[in-house]
């Protein structure tokens, strides 16, 4: 199983290490050409969404990515900034990026770094998981076809719509690999029913 990790900026190495610990073949995506090969799944990591969004556009990767996710049904996991990149709408000024999941997200919803926190909350289909929020966004609104998988203080912080999975928090920063396994399960099921 080959899983690409967008490696333009941010915490991509943490995802790669997590995937490798699960025996998945992880590779870095830095250029448009990296999007052309065989790929069973894709992770958009945490970092700064404005940086990654700009680099995606400048490096001519936005449309190709949209094509593979929406058109091709490529399973994709977005964490924190990755969730912002995948959202259809962003609260406030600023345009959306890939528009792959029908949610509206609020940037820096918990405030600045002093609002960052660690907690544990139930994740549908997994159970309680440790969650690290770093200047994190939350899901402001979601379309009916989006399944909310986790909430913290009533706010949705994880969701899924078909092949797209998003979390406000950083599963790659903990030692708990169940969210990544959940994503790999989505890929496996997708491969069985092409």
């Amino acid at each position: 199983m080959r899983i690409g990790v967008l490696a333009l900026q941010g915490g991509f190495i943490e995802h790669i290490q997590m995937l490798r610990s699960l025996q998945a073949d992880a590779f870095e995506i830095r250029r448009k050409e990296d999007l052309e090969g065989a790929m069973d799944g894709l992770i958009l990591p945490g970092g700064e969404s404005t940086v990654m969004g700009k680099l995606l556009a400048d490096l001519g990767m936005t449309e190709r990515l949209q094509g593979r996710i929406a058109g091709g049904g490529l399973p994709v996991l977005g964490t924190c900034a990755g969730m912002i990149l995948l959202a259809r709408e962003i609260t406030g000024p600023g345009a959306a990026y890939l528009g792959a999941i029908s949610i509206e997200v609020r940037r820096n919803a918990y405030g600045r770094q002093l609002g960052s926190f660690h907690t544990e909350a139930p994740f549908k289909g997994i159970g309680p998981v440790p969650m690290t929020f770093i200047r994190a966004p939350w899901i402001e609104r979601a379309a009916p076809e989006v399944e909310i998988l986790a909430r913290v203080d009533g706010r949705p912080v994880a969701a899924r719509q078909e092949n797209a999975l998003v979390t406000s928090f950083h599963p790659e920063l903990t030692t708990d690999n169940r969210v990544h396994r959940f994503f790999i399960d989505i890929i496996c099921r997708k491969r069985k029913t092409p």
Partner: protein
Amino acid sequence: MQTEAAKQQYELNRNLAQMLKGGVIMDVSTPQQARIAEEAGAAAVMALERIPADIRAAGGVSRMSDPQMIRGIQEAVSIPVMAKVRIGHFVEAQILEAIEIDYIDESEVLSPADDKFHIDKSLFRVPFVCGAKNLGEALRRIAEGASMIRTKGEPGTGDVIQAVRHLRAMTSEIRRVQSLKEDELYYAAKELQVPYELLRSVHENGRLPVVNFAAGGVATPADAALMMQLGAEGVFVGSGIFKSGNPARRAQAIVKAVTNFNNPAILAEISADLGEAMVGINESEIQLLMAERGI
């Protein structure tokens, strides 16, 4: 003794630095510059009234920036905002924590407030980045509570030689520590004047326990890529951007250089037609070595 809550906060602060990796942190003096930096792809901005080149030119005592100026920049952008305090000036740090700064840089660029003691950074909830020119300095700052390290380089010069020297010193010392026998670590800790536990972590993992950026004298996309190839996890650019002919263009090019640091074809493309780089001063021409502050 650190409480559970303090340990967790430190972990969150290390985590924020992890999210800045592969990014460029740019010095800005106004909300307008902050927006230019954000649009160009800065991963964070450093708010300061005068960039290091101007501090160097003006001389005199250089202090923390006006909180009102910093607030203006916080309101202008969504990316993290950092600001500098003088070495050892814990009250300036308390003030920046009160306005919820995202990262404090206890920086040798400003005039030191204390010639012996750095700030006890473990007393703060807000994260700190500190400069270092070798492994000993880096681990001492981490022991005091820094959750991110950068090379000192020589700020405001546009001359990258010191940043290269500091990063090479750190990586070669790390390799040496990795090669030591277990029982030699105690003596090495004594030699380097650092806590044994931190040195042991370097020995086991072959890296600093926190994220390590390059800073001080980076002026071109090639400089930024050089630092990345030498092992930096990201780059601070101070005077190099807003002292150049076309700041927006140069800022974008440096951002792309940090992402594509290993791709000479892309580096060639983005290095072309950037307008004038900052003039710069060679290290042999300067009077004041900021890197000597705070060891």
